[in-house]
């Protein structure tokens, strides 16, 4: 171990993350009473003892340390506050375990991992349990009271069964099971009646097994469901072990419990014998998926059951095919004919494929590259004698071992076993390397394993860039340049995400610089909005040509700015303005008015009033709206529109009178149609009056009148009219209209009065040629 600790481990709070994870130490905490001035130190180390970070602890009394599944450090304080730090002791966030915990203080705490994530269990000073099964989605659960519990339980553990988290606790000789609603007394099957009071308990890594230690030195081992006993053992040591953990391999029948006392380590299992080791130093046990890690000041060891493949090969005088193959290969290298003998022996039993697989599998369990190599060499040698042995497993193992050896290097310090590595998956391993800021190694691994760019290299580069923007000692330009240099146009890189991170670190200028590298302007918009660069966001949205994006920004602006500023901003962005207008036209007509008002757009205001006049039912309302329009048109210096609208008001009023006088619908007719209807109904005087009042041009009036008269069949009136004065439209129309109404007799009357150049046409029409 590199760490060179001066303190004894027992004087520190220790937490080590599973899967070869980092170690956290809180030193001096025990000595606090002696010299209150000295602050405790919080250190994090890699599994090989390399110091990752060290900070003086400034917050309250820490009861328990623990690591989350994503390798964040949890510091559970006496007052129930949980502080979360990352690997490098940088504070991330904190949360509280609730008021009840705050009042009664934390007596003990445990961090546990289930399929829901990382959880925290707390035993309070009032001997009550509080649970949170997932700290990322915090839901506090207060467990029911244990009846008659006066003192803290001697030991307790968190179990996870059928997706429910429960607490098992021991008080004296009694075991209690606490679930969400109830508390029940349980007795493990096959428990010796004279076993005595429980002192220690241990749950296996997968929550399947449970071990109980009593004050008579008796150990009960069984299923965590308490339905079956696996075995028992009498250690005849009466003091409780400092730590007790399970040591077992997935899918193995050999289950064992490891117990550590101050200077003694004992492994017990389904056997009357036990294995004992002497501990030279204070040690700390870390349960793992397939074994136990043992930490001490100077060493870091791994205790595990030897896997079957390794046993078969390395057992003394083993005749297993793998062992023979390994031997054959060694002889072959010595150029001895014995190689052939060994090989024949395997081949005769037709076990060569098994032999090769065995060697490959065993290589995975080895930590020494030399042993790995010799096993792989043997496998490769054996492969030559098999037709069509699928190469994938061999290649895969070589790659995996290459990766594992790289990360086991003490500089990196992630001592994963092959089994753990497979369980963890390469993606998670890469994440962990990224967490440790080992970007080059992560990228090498991606390249070595030929992971796809988007999954592999780009993702890591993006993480690197996000880390890079946090380096405050470099100028914005330098950082932006460095990032662009390295990332270039790598596919799958989102500059906007990196920029978002830069903004979160309080570097908005850098964020904007980074955004400029973002090729898709649409991607820039959300962050710009967040950074309150709304105007820039608006122009970027418009640039992107995505109207939906423009709408998003516009609505954002609408809520963010006051109305005046909002309108002003829009005025400078015609594209956005038109979009917003379109929206208002359908959805918020009143806003439309305000919009025009702001801009002093009297013409549009006038149009707006005209529009709204249509929706007015009553004539007064309509006239009112039109009058508003007239005012606006005058302001807009649009005399024509004002005049036309005034005429319309005049016409409306008149039509109402006509409607009352003649009891006929006149409203909404055009002037032409109004006059025409009047003539059709024989109100010639009224028509005449309108003709004068509205200054209807002569030509129109004549067209209109002869048309109406002809339709009415009032030929007499027509003749009178034709003689009233000289027709401004000539007399051909008279002929045409009469012909149209099949009155050739009347038509003939007018033909001679037609202008000479059209007279021929007129005569043709009446048929007098």
């Amino acid at each position: 171990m590199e760490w060179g600790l001066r303190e004894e481990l027992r004087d520190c709070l220790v937490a080590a993350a599973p899967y070869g994870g980092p170690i956290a130490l809180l030193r001096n905490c025990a000595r606090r009473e002696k010299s209150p001035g000295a602050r405790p130190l919080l250190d994090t180390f890699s599994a090989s003892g390399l110091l990752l970070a060290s900070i003086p602890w400034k917050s309250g009394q820490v009861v328990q340390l623990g690591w989350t599944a994503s390798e964040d450090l949890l510091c559970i304080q006496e007052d129930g506050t949980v502080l979360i730090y990352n690997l490098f002791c940088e504070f991330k966030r904190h949360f509280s375990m609730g008021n009840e915990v705050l009042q009664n203080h934390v007596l003990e705490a445990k961090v546990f991992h289930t399929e829901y994530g990382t959880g925290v269990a707390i035993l309070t000073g009032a001997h009550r349990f509080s649970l949170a099964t997932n700290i990322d989605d915090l839901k506090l659960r207060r467990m029911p009271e244990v009846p008659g519990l006066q003192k803290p339980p001697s030991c307790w553990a968190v179990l996870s069964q059928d997706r429910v988290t429960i607490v098992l606790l021991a008080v004296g000789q009694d075991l209690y099971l606490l679930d969400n609603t109830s508390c029940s007394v349980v007795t493990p099957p096959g428990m010796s009646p004279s076993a005595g009071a429980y002192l220690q308990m241990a749950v296996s890594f997968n929550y399947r097994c449970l071990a109980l230690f009593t004050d008579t030195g008796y150990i009960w081992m069984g299923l965590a469901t308490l339905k079956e006993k696996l075995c028992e053992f009498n250690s005849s040591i009466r003091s409780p072990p400092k730590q007790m953990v399970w040591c077992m391999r997935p899918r193995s029948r050999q289950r064992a419990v490891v117990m550590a006392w101050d200077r003694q380590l004992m492994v017990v299992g389904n056997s009357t014998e036990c294995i004992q080791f002497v501990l030279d130093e204070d040690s700390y046990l870390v349960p793992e998926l397939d074994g136990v890690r043992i930490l001490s000041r100077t060493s870091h060891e791994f205790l595990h059951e030897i896997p079957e493949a390794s046993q078969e090969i390395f057992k003394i005088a083993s005749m297993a095919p793998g062992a023979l193959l390994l031997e054959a290969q060694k002889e072959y290298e010595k150029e001895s004919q014995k190689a052939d003998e060994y090989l024949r022996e395997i081949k005769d039993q037709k076990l060569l494929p098994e032999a090769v697989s065995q060697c490959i599998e065993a290589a995975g369990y080895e930590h020494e590259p030399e042993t790995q190599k010799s096993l792989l060499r043997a496998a490769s040698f054996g492969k030559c004698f098999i037709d069509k042995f699928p190469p994938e497993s061999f290649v895969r193992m070589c790659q995996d071992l290459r990766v594992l050896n790289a990360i086991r290097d003490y500089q990196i310090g992630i001592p994963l076993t092959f089994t753990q590595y497979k369980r963890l998956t390469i993606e998670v391993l890469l994440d962990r390397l990224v967490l440790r800021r080992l970007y080059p190694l992560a990228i090498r691994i991606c390249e070595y394993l030929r992971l796809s760019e988007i999954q592999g290299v780009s993702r890591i580069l993006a993480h690197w860039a996000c880390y890079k923007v946090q380096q405050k000692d470099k100028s914005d330009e330098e950082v932006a340049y460095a990032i662009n240099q390295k990332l270039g146009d790598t596919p799958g890189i989102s500059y906007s995400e990196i920029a978002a991170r830069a903004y979160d670190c309080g570097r908005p200028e850098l964020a904007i610089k980074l955004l400029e590298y973002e090729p898709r302007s649409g991607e820039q918009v959300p962050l710009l909005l967040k950074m309150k660069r709304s105007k820039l966001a608006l122009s970027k949205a418009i640039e992107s040509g995505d109207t939906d994006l423009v709408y998003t920004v516009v609505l954002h602006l609408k809520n963010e700015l006051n109305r005046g500023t909002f309108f002003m901003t829009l005025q400078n962005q015609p594209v956005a303005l038109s979009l917003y207008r379109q929206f208002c036209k359908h959805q918020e007509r009143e806003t439309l008015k305000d919009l025009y008002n702001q801009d002093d757009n009297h013409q549009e205001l006038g149009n707006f009033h005209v529009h709204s006049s249509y929706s007015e039912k009553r004539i007064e309302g309509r006239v009112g709206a039109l009058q508003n329009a007239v005012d606006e048109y005058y302001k807009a210096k649009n005399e024509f529109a004002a005049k036309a609208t005034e005429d319309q008001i005049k016409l409306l009023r008149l039509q109402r009178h006509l409607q009352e006088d003649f009891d006929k619908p006149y409203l909404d007719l055009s002037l032409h149609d109004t006059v025409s209807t009047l003539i059709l109904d024989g109100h010639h005087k009224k028509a005449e009056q309108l003709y004068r009042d509205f200054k209807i041009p002569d030509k129109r009036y004549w067209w209109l009148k002869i048309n109406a008269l002809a339709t009415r069949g009032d030929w007499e009136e027509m003749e009178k009219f034709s003689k009233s004065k000289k027709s401004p439209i000539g007399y051909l129309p008279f002929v045409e209209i009469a012909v149209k109404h099949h009155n050739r007799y009347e038509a003939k009357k007018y033909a001679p009065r037609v202008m000479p150049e059209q007279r021929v046409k007129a005569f043709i029409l009446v048929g007098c040629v």
Partner: protein
Amino acid sequence: MASTARRDVPEPPDFGILKRLARDQLIYLLEQLPGRKDLFIEADLMSPLDRIANVSILKHEVDKLYKVESRPALSTSDQLCFLVRPRVKTMKYIADIVNADKMSGRSRKYKIIFSPQKFYACEMVLEEEGVFGDVTCDEWSFYLLPLDEDIISMELPEFFRDYFLEGDHRWINSVARALQLLNSLYGPFSRAYGIGRCAKMCYELWRELEEESEGDSQGRKPEIGNIFLMDRDTDYVTALCSQMVYEGLVDDTFRIKCGSVDFGPEVTSSDKSIKVLLNAQDKVFSQIRNEHFSSVFGFLSQKSRNLQAQYDRRRGMDIKQMKNFVSQELKGLKQEHRLLSLHIGACESIMKKKTKQDFQEMIKAEHSLLEGFDIRESTSFIEEHIDRQVSPIESLRLMCLLSITENGLNPKDYRSLKTQYLQSYGPEHLLTFHNLKRIGLLTEQAAGETLTAVESRVSKLVTDRAAGKITDAFNSLARKSNFRAISKKLGLIPRLDGEYDLKMPRDMAYVFSGAYTPLSCKIIEQVLERRGWQGLEEVLRLLNGTEFSEAGAAEASPGRDSQRTVLAVFLGGCTCSEMAALRFLGRERGCRFIFLTTAVTSSGRLMEAMAETRA
């Protein structure tokens, strides 16, 4: 007309796959809401839907079909599915249904399928109405409807008003996506030309989409090599002229809807209407659609004589020949016979309508407007047209044509024509005039402002882009059309030496009786000929357009079919006359034009889009 045609015109690509893609996606989307359901369809999606899917497909676990309309729906199903355009109005309709159900304590499942895409504004409305959580949304990317072997329509008539009048850019994304789809199926397009701000935006957005997706267009054999994008506002004149080719006249008279037309009783000479699909499959129609109307009758009568002759062959046949005839030819002949009689009926009906409205006079007036003489006389013609209440849309069209060819009306005419119009057709058109002014179709000549002064102002604004006021500035100042100068520069009015033979056309001007070559088509011709805009600088200055021309990396040899296939994209609509003119050009030059348009349009539709009604 076939005499000058070249024989090496490439065949158009097969666009059937577009229909299949859309149909399959729709079925998939409907299946996303398992179980029985009622389907509500937006009215203007009905016809396009009809073209790609038959009712049996729509009945995919669908109990009843409803039309989305203002009436509240009485559906009893527990699942409602809405197939709609992304419009605020429709969102309110849906929200009302959902809210009504909530009030009565009824719980149902609602699903909205937006075509061609969803807009944020729609979700916003749903949210404001408090139903966002109650509905699920999906997109049916039905961007392209192949109407014919060479016409693809996006069926977005509102594009014109939204973009050119309201300055609403939301459809640009849809166009870009449509281009992306076409490019992936029939491209890669190696050369792109375009004119207009919208064209440029669409093009750029499409390029961005292509870069993002990085599809593997390599190695595929392109079927379409060139693409030309054009904004409708580059050339309003052509769209405003009375159409003279048969297809255009049918459209103007009967309104072709989604590639089919309803011929009423006056055409069918029976008491019911017949719906006829007008496309290249119609043997009669495909031969006359591009013809000038004056030669259609002659053709039809020739055709009927031929048909009669074929029928007459029966005489003197022996039994075996007769059997052959009946089994093989008779059906085709009968079909042709039926179509022939329909088209003859349509012709008669068109003739009748046109003569009634003094069609000749109107054409004369139009032609003098285009040529720029006897303006006074034309103005009085328009005045009379208004006074006699011939047709509000037609009157408006003539006024706009006058304004745009004359670079705006003089103040006196501007006022008096507008007053006349309001008196004739109702005061609500005051708002219509405002719209027309904004879009630059009906403007007033600024007193004392010469052409050059306007230009300098416009060009100043163009460089002053950063001010961002550009859209508004363009809207009000709009495009001084400079029509007269452009027409001179490009020689749009053919010099007449003798009678123009409409049966044997010499150039694209035949679509307007030889009086005017459509500007839009002329620009396309010139640019394709020069492979760029070189030499057209003066025209561009007058057009005031944003032009571009880009060559892709992989330029194939010009001899290839794909290089002689041009996708002509009309943003804001394309008329039948323009299509006829370009088809003519294609036959002359040995190239094939494929038309992609936001909608097939006509002068009537343009005017209606601008008109404000009391609704």
